[in-house]
């Protein structure tokens, strides 16, 4: 099986200029040749005229919902959504049912994923049952294949348990992912606390709920030496805390989602539950800080927090509807539209670094995030100029709860090649 992509510009390949039109030959799933012209005949030929070939995207934060919530998403539909959006690897969060707190759940997920040409990294839990009371068997989780642990969806409230968890993960060299939200401060909140929540009469989640939680975890990471990763940073205060901690040498990394980089709490004016996300959409000043954080390296990468929910759940009234938006199928286009086209803040190479190379490094998966001869072909072919409107029927995900529905985006993933297989969704 061979694939030849012709006339394509390549980004994210060491030593290759983005300006050259090249041919990329993939043989038996391996990148066999990158050259001005390739004489070999391929079974499948793809014209890359006007397009860019980039390393397949890597997401550190996705919810595939299996086991337990297969009506929202499964390993298979989640992987298809990912491939549709240019992703070749995802770390899936452990708030499943049962939670991914033991080896058998990890194995079950990995077995399902093994049937799809896609890379799935299950994230284990920090505590048993994600209850924040006892440590999960993290050494066994690691042996089963976990590279990170998180009680995602919940903050580990108990500071002593957190201390012990961080000491334990630093011994195992696992990544500790923190869902930084002080539950007492965010209690009953459904959106950002501020002018808009006052105007809409909705209960607020204050910035301090994130800031306080980040501050404690940074302190504990400094003491324990754990590799701490702050999930879905949303506030200016968290950005400055992380920036200061990095300067001090704390082993901290952070991610931000496309929706937190793009929307403010003003998006909630019509009580549209697709904008009900946790952490909530914040204010313009926060977005500004998040962007600055991305540019100066305080924030390491962009992650989707792809959180599928059924339409009937999102159709409940605002307070009862669950938090979350899907993201895998819109992330690349949304980031490109906002930060490349509109604000000209990021280059395509920056986007590749933030959405592929850096998350791959944090996963300890150096085989992703670059294009070079001799490695497995995990790449995406993208059209930077394609203008399109996000519609419900676009999604491969089993759920359609996207806050990008109705948005006009510029740039789209044309196809994804994962483990050498071409994925093109029409």
């Amino acid at each position: 099986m061979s694939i030849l992509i012709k006339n394509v510009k390549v980004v994210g390949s060491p030593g290759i200029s983005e300006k050259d039109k090249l041919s990329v030959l993939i043989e038996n799933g391996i990148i066999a040749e990158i050259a001005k012209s390739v004489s070999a005949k391929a079974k499948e030929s793809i014209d890359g005229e006007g397009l860019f070939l980039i390393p397949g995207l890597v997401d550190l934060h996705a919810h595939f919902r299996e086991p337990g919530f297969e009506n929202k998403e499964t390993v298979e539909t989640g992987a298809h959504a990912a491939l549709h959006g240019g992703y070749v690897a995802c770390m899936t969060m452990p708030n499943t049912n049962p939670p991914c707190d033991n080896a058998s759940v990890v194995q079950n997920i990995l077995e399902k994923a093994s049937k799809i040409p896609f890379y799935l990294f299950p994230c284990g839990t920090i505590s048993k049952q994600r209850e924040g009371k006892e440590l999960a068997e993290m050494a066994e989780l690691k042996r089963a294949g976990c590279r990170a642990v998180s009680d995602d969806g919940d903050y580990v409230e108990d500071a002593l348990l957190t201390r012990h968890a961080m000491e334990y993960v630093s011994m195992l060299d696992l990544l500790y992912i923190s869902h930084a939200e002080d539950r007492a401060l965010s209690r009953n909140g459904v959106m950002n606390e501020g002018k808009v929540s006052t105007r809409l009469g909705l209960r607020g989640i204050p910035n301090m709920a994130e800031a306080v939680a980040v501050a404690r975890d940074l302190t504990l990471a400094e003491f324990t030496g754990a590799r701490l990763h702050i999930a879905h940073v949303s506030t200016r205060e968290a950005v400055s805390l992380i920036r200061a901690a990095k300067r001090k040498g704390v082993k901290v990394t952070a991610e931000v989602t496309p929706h937190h980089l793009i929307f403010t709490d003003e998006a909630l004016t019509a009580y549209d539950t697709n904008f009900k996300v946790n952490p909530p959409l914040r204010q313009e000043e926060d977005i500004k800080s998040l962007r600055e954080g991305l540019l100066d390296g305080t924030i390491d990468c962009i992650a989707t927090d792809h959180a599928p929910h059924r339409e009937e759940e999102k159709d409940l009234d605002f307070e009862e509807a669950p938090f979350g938006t899907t993201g895998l199928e819109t992330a690349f286009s949304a980031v490109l539209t906002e930060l490349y086209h509109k604000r000209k803040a990021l280059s395509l190479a920056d986007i590749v670094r933030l959405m592929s190379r850096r998350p791959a490094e944090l996963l300890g998966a150096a085989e992703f995030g670059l294009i070079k001869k001799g490695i497995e072909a995990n790449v995406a072919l993208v059209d930077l100029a394609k203008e399109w409107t996000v519609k419900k029927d676009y999604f491969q995900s089993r759920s359609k709860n996207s806050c990008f529905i109705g948005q006009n985006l510029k740039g789209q993933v044309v196809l994804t090649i994962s483990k050498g297989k071409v994925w093109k969704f029409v």
Partner: protein
Amino acid sequence: MTTTKTKWTKKDLLGLKDLSREEILLILDTAKGFCEISKRPIKKVPALRGRTVVNLFLEPSTRTRVSFELAEKRLSADNLTFSGTSSSSLAKGETLKDMARNIEAMNVDLIVMRHTSSGAPHRLARYLRPGIVNAGDGINEHPTQALLDMFTIREKKKKIEGLKVSFIGDILHSRVARSNIWGLTKLGAEVTVCGPKTLLPVDIESLGVRVTYDVDRAIEGADAITLLRIQLERQKESFFPSLREYMQTFGITRERLERAKRDVIIMHPGPINRGVELADDVADGEYSVILDQVTNGVAVRMAVLYLLSGARS
């Protein structure tokens, strides 16, 4: 008072946030005409004959529900009330859209809706042909209460523009305060909110009101004072130390009222916590217009139903 020439065109009454000054005045002027009907021996006009109104109360309510039911009956509408709580099957699990479609399928003309969740009527209004009257959504708005408050102020003071109106108590959880703030500021009143800092919404100043934590300053010079109910549960949620301390610090007593204008009016949307937000002798005293508010409520609701029903024909 001038009679506005505005015509009512909106399908729903969701909140005073969305209304213009002219629309608010139109409702208040219309309500004036309806006051008299409730004083007749035969308290009925045929304005809504043949129209069906469903009262969907998904949060416990006595006063507002009864007031709406009377308003509907006095307009000769066919009405029925569905009461439930947020824990009933209707609120839990059934989507708003399904709920809406079921009601719509029965060819209802107007739905009066109270819901525990802010924004619920706004979302329902988008799915539905029938007009929606918001009878209180979460902590967001309670437009007919604010309208009857403004009606009462206007009745007593002959105007609203330039008046000083203070709200004292739990502003954070008060949909009555929010609706009043939208309405009164649009009509040119100077609004002050007062309460413990823990019970004032963030950035409330952005709605164009003055904030004070000193109850005496809220009283001084006020033409009208509305007290808001303090719920005991809020003490358990650490919003304030005790009802005792609340009364001492923010409660309205006769002594405190000495600072007020001599023609101040005291209002309360009910139900009153006697001895907490206001003393007995204030609630029943000469400044109190609390029962006038209740009386006016029926007329204001008649006006709202009448205007919405007219916009439909």
